[in-house]
């Protein structure tokens, strides 16, 4: 699910979604607001993929959450 393969195209893969979502990142957004933004702009974004992609971005140290607000960091 992370990487595209024979069954999953790049935009639908978690990696692809994460890349798209990264482009939409803004400072000082709540998770819900961020979810609304991403859902509006990214096709084929489901809740599940959103969650996984956000997890991936956290794993890579690009985002963290506190009090429901997302903080984006650039390594």
């Amino acid at each position: 699910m992370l990487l595209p393969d024979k069954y999953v195209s790049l935009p639908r893969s978690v990696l692809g979604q994460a890349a798209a979502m990264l482009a939409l990142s803004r400072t000082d957004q709540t998770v819900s607001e961020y979810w609304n933004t991403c859902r509006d702009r990214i096709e084929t974004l489901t809740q599940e993929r959103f969650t996984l992609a956000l997890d991936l971005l956290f794993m890579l140290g690009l985002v963290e959450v506190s009090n429901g607000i997302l903080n984006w960091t650039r390594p």
Partner: protein
Amino acid sequence: MKLVQLSANKESFRTVHFHTGLNIVLAERTQLSRETDSRNGVGKTTLMQIIDFCLGATGPVAGAGQGLAKLSGGDWTFNLTVDLNGQQMMITRAVDDGGTFTLAGHYEALGLDPAEPTLEDPHPEVKVGSRAYTDALGSLCFGLEPAKLREQYAPTFRQLFGHFLRYRNDAFISPFEAFGKPPAEQPQVNNTFLLGLDWHIATEWQRLKDRGKTLTALGKQGIEDATAELGELESRRVRLQSRMRALEDQVSTFRVIPEYRALEIRLNEGSRRMRDITNELTILAGQVELYQSEVQASSGDGRDIDVEGLFEEAGLALPSQVVRTLEEVRKFHVNVNRNRRSYLEGEIARIDRTRHKLEAELRALEDQRVADMSRLSQGGALDEHSKLQQDLGSAAGELQSLDQRIAQLRALRAGKAALRKEELAIQDRAQLDLDERRPILAPAIQQFSTTFERLYGEPADLIVDVGPNNYRFQTHLPRDGSHGIGKISVLAYDLSLAHSLRMRGVGPGLLAHDSIVFDGVDERQAARALHLLLGLTTDEDLQYLVTINSDDAPRTELEGLGISMDQHVTLTLTDADPSGSLLGIRF
């Protein structure tokens, strides 16, 4: 009326003193002139022209080759003295003043009012115009009505007199035509008059023909064709009228919906929007289903999602980039997903709201559509109505011109039918009149045959009968090798007329023929003709004048019949010298 003397105002003119009976004017041609045109001859035709001129012929037309035109401007005046039942009258007419006829002597025989006599001049002259003069001659010679009272096509003096003074080239083509190529009614009227038939029938017949001509302005079809066309037109009219009634019905029951076209557009757009909405609703329903199954499947806190799997994959694919521990990732995940369920439910709610909105819109559109369609079914668009009215208008126009054509054809048919009836009626009248007047016709027919019997030893027929369109005048002549038998038939006919008129107590009492009459006629026949004429001049009190070329004069034959030709020669014209011609000078 008898010719007495012809003179002119110029010395050179050779005055002619006519005999009471037979007058021969001899034209001698010398060796030199044998080849020349007889028109440039000694004046034998000129003599006839002058007599005709004094008796009312149209004055010379300047530029016309023949006739007295060559005398125009020459100050020529001619005097013709005639005997009217024992009293003499002199007619003077100038070539250059052709409108005036000066009459002297006993002109009261013409029925003209005499001028007041004075002591010096007990018989003063009187001047008359052409119309009064020819009227008077017509009354005297033929008993004609004056021009004022004359009906259309009635015979005139000048036309009738052509039969008694023939000299033009085309005067000898047919006995029944005194002038070449006359209008059809002239020979009809003239010959019926001269032969003693009811000439009014001939004029009426001509008027019927005139009516026939005006009818052709309505159309050239005959009665049968007009009837056939009328039948077609009538049936077309019936069809047209029923079409018009249907159109009128439509127009009168038509309810114009002013907003018709606008409604049509709205209907279309509404349908399109309804389709779009339906499509979108389907998509939304699908989305809701998807989220609902996700809601059901998940436990609400995201524990069902395979974070570990992702962590492992990431560790493999991007090892140096992973900077968090699994525990940290788990904590993050739970944090973020705390509200996942409510997100999903929020999504579902949001989509539902949209769906409801769309469904409401769909319902509203459906209501509008029903209302619009009901409204449209109530009537029609304005432009449809206008077109109906236009169709009706042009149908009305078509009807009008059909009616016009029908009326025209009906008039034509009625006119032709009436005309046909009248033509048949007049034909009957002509036949009846002819039958009743056979005794009057008989002397002419007899005289005609007698002339031929005397000249050729064989009878000939003068035939008068009634054809479908007019009187028919024909001659049946004995078959004879000579060229001149046609000319003799002219002579014979004119003689018959003179004879017939005399029996009825009218007629000019004189007859004159140019030398053409003996053209191609055997000397023997010519002599016999002159012998016959001599007899007639006595018995019939007829004056006869003929010009003869000296080469053709049947001197010997006449002597054989006991006649000395010279005794009857009134004048000898010769071209040996200009003074030998009629005018006495060369032209």
